[in-house]
């Protein structure tokens, strides 16, 4: 199902990309079936709390510097604004900026609102958000409650829009509509693509750098300068004015294939801004493909080859030393799909043997219609065992208890604690630019060596900690709760 920017909301990933959250098999099967989009996801008869689209949508949008978010929901749905505010401060700190709070309002829906509706309160909250903070745009995020009771958000927003000088933009991200929380990124990008980005007035040498917190800004500025290009980092820490001009850029690239698919392809389809469809720039193979594809689009192939040769000469000897220290170690990877499949490759570049990969979901195709490039790449190497689970820790801990790797490499908060309690050295990739390119790869290698060298925290903790699972469960097949019959999407 292609991107449709005429609709008021983005289709969820299950319907648009054939996304699944339950699978146990191998990388070759995954890649093979994905190319025909014939993989059917499996349900589980036991689940643990995962995450939802609204968290991704409003967390991502609230990172824009000059906007307000109005969440039409009970107060608990805006609880993530606290984590969002912590992220904001971190990003401002690494940029040396003054620290500010994000601006997020909850309409604080109560029981009578669920009976009688509360679009008037929503309109008042939108006006109050404007009065207090004078944002350049207001995003109105929906919730399970607003969705289930059928609040007419579009009309309410249209009415209040007449009174306000800045765009008021609905973002449809009800948590119950998708099991894939990344659908929330698409909801956010849909809002940006349809209501913020303006038609280009001119073409610039900017590159839309689709990312999260942007820690590697200085490095990216330097790299792109070699091609006479300048990055514009989106979406967190950008401004509405910067986002309005995304259509003028020479290309879009993304640190995460999951994140970038909708906006990258949307900008290409609507405004002709080429989206670089390559491996992500983690490690050497990723960086080189990313650069070459970008260079092709902007006609700078020779510059790219020169840069690649120069960097290789700089890092390869040191990489050899790191590989010798890491060889023989076995690792399991558990991350969102783009990071999981890119970091498996990165770990192999560092000499680590990856024995299992788990992705928090799997998109059978991206919005440009192809199986994720990172999966195609891996399927041409060994046939690695792969499972897909939306952070179902009972399944993963059972598996790790059986596989007993030396190292567990994860992404997403909380996931490294499980394995540390099992005595396994754990590295959590919080920063999306860990292992970025050549120097990042070396640094990541040293981080792994450190984690494997002193495992005292994991060792001492695991002696005293009990896992929260019964012995019965730990002796079952890891995928016993994955229902055997295949479930077609709704």
């Amino acid at each position: 199902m292609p991107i449709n920017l005429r609709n008021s909301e983005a289709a969820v990933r299950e319907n648009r990309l054939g996304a699944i959250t339950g699978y146990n098999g191998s990388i070759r099967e995954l890649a093979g079936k994905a190319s025909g989009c014939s993989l059917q996801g499996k349900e589980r008869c036991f689940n643990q709390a995962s995450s939802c689209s609204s968290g991704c949508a409003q967390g991502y949008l609230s990172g824009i510097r000059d906007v307000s978010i109005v969440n039409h929901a009970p107060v608990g749905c805006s609880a993530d604004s606290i984590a969002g505010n912590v992220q904001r401060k971190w990003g401002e700190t690494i940029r040396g900026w003054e620290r500010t709070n994000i601006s997020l309002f909850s309409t604080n829906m109560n029981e009578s609102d669920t009976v009688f509706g509360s679009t008037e309160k929503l309109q008042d909250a939108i006006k109050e958000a404007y009065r207090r903070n004078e944002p350049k745009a207001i995003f109105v995020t929906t919730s399970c409650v607003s969705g289930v009771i059928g609040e007419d958000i579009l009309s309410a927003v249209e009415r209040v829009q007449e009174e306000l000088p800045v765009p008021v933009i609905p973002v449809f991200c009800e948590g119950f509509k998708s099991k894939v929380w990344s659908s929330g990124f698409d909801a956010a990008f849909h809002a940006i693509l349809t209501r913020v980005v303006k038609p280009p007035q001119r073409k610039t040498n900017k590159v839309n750098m689709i990312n999260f917190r942007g820690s590697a800004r200085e490095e990216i500025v330097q790299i792109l300068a070699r091609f006479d290009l300048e990055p514009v980092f989106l979406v967190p820490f950008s401004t509405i004015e910067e986002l309005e001009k995304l259509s003028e850029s020479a290309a879009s690239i993304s640190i995460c294939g999951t994140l970038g698919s909708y906006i990258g392809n949307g900008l290409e389809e609507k405004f002709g801004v080429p989206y670089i469809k390559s491996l992500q720039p983690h490690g050497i193979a990723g960086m080189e493909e990313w650069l070459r594809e970008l260079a092709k689009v902007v006609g700078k192939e020779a510059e790219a080859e020169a840069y690649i040769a120069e960097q290789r000469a700089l890092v390869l000897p040191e990489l050899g030393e790191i590989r010798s220290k890491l060889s023989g170690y076995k690792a399991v990877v558990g991350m969102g799909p783009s990071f999981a499949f890119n970091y498996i490759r990165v770990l192999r570049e560092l000499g680590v043997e990856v024995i299992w990969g788990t992705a928090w979901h799997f998109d059978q195709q991206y919005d440009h219609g192809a199986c994720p490039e990172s999966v195609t790449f891996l399927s041409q190497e060994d046939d690695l065992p792969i499972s897909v689970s939306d952070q179902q820790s009972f399944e993963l801990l059972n598996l790790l208890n059986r596989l007993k790797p030396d190292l567990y490499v994860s992404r997403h908060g909380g996931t490294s604690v499980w394995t540390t309690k099992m005595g396994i050295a754990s590295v959590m990739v919080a920063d999306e630019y860990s292992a970025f390119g050549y120097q990042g790869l070396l640094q990541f290698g040293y981080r792994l060596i450190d984690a494997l060298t002193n495992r005292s925290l994991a060792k001492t903790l695991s002696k005293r900690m009990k896992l929260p699972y019964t012995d019965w469960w730990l002796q079952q097949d890891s995928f016993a709760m994955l229902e055997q019959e295949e479930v077609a999407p709704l």
Partner: protein
Amino acid sequence: MTQWVEQARHVCSLGSLQTALAIERTVPILHAGPGCGQKLWGAVGLNNGTQGAGYLGGHTVPSTNVGEREVIFGGEEKLRTTIANALKIIDADLYVVLTGCTADLVGDDVGEVVRSFQQAGKPVVFAETGGFKGTNYWGHELVIDALIDQHLAEAVPQVEERLVNIWSVVPYQDPFWVGNLREINKLVAELGLIPNNVFGRGGGIQALNRVPHAQFNLLVSPWVGLKNVRHLQDRFGTEFLHYPVLPIGPTETGRFLREVGAFAGVDSDRVEAVIRRHEDDYYSFIEGSAEVLLETRLLPSRFVTVADSFYALGISRFLVNDLGMIPETQSEGIAASVRFTADGGWAQQEIRRTKFRGRPLLIGSSWEKTLAAEVKGYHLSVSMPASDRLVMNRSYVGYDGALSLVEDIYSLVLAEFQ
């Protein structure tokens, strides 16, 4: 109509999943959307004194992750399978089923599902905590009442003399709950009473089972929990003492100990001896740091609290009655204006309008950090969200807790200009 909220300082009733988690080896089972748990523990847990998942929390929490299918066709069957498998997979003593908005709106008969497990002798209770129904303070009370009605349904009270159930701050919502409850336990024990605390380490199902047998319930809270101690009185005939202020510092803690002692029939000489010993200790520290309290350059002038009523009241009384400071505004007297709101953005606007003489001390949450910079104040996070602090066993209650608070405030002042 409820007011909108900018800058959340509490969450919805489903936030009481953390109340269940605060009972050792107790696990909540959410019949709720996929992201409810993560948002809620992220706010009142991880980003509030960095309180992590612990044994059973975080992504370990079972959940039906209600999706489109359950919204359309109902989720009772999915809940039934989830509970049945949770009993097999999760190693816990007690399973607390909590509903979210979707389940309550769709009208799933969760009570019927849970009762079928109860009838089979399984340790499962439930509460309908759909987020639109109230706050996590309210949800906390709801969960405790559910435990009284369902887990203790068959209990027959056999009063154990001197046994006192302790009910106070809301676990996790108060980032210092572990330390604060320990300190209240310690003070009560020094009076010769036997504190029984359901929450925190050493409590759990054993402590819960002892609740009906207490001589009395002690509620140290402005209002949260009043519903529960009244319910316990109706159910088991247990008397209660409601002490509405979190006792911080010698003045309030002395008053607290005397009142508890009188209520419990503790000999007043014993009470006075406990107070004297603590005061001697407390004042020797204050005497020893009097120079810094009186002579540091750039001492804070006035103070403002932006906190829930536990801390707004408790901390203000301490700073006014014991430390000689003057309140500017409290979201709670020396007669100061007290404003009540759930809308933190509004509270901050009011503070911006205040003309401070000198540098104020802002005691609140991490939302106030940027405001403090604006008004050139000192800032200390004590209430949710205290995302800028790592809290383990620190307490602000009693004599030692007050000393910790003094340490934290004046360390801020000293560190700031050095």
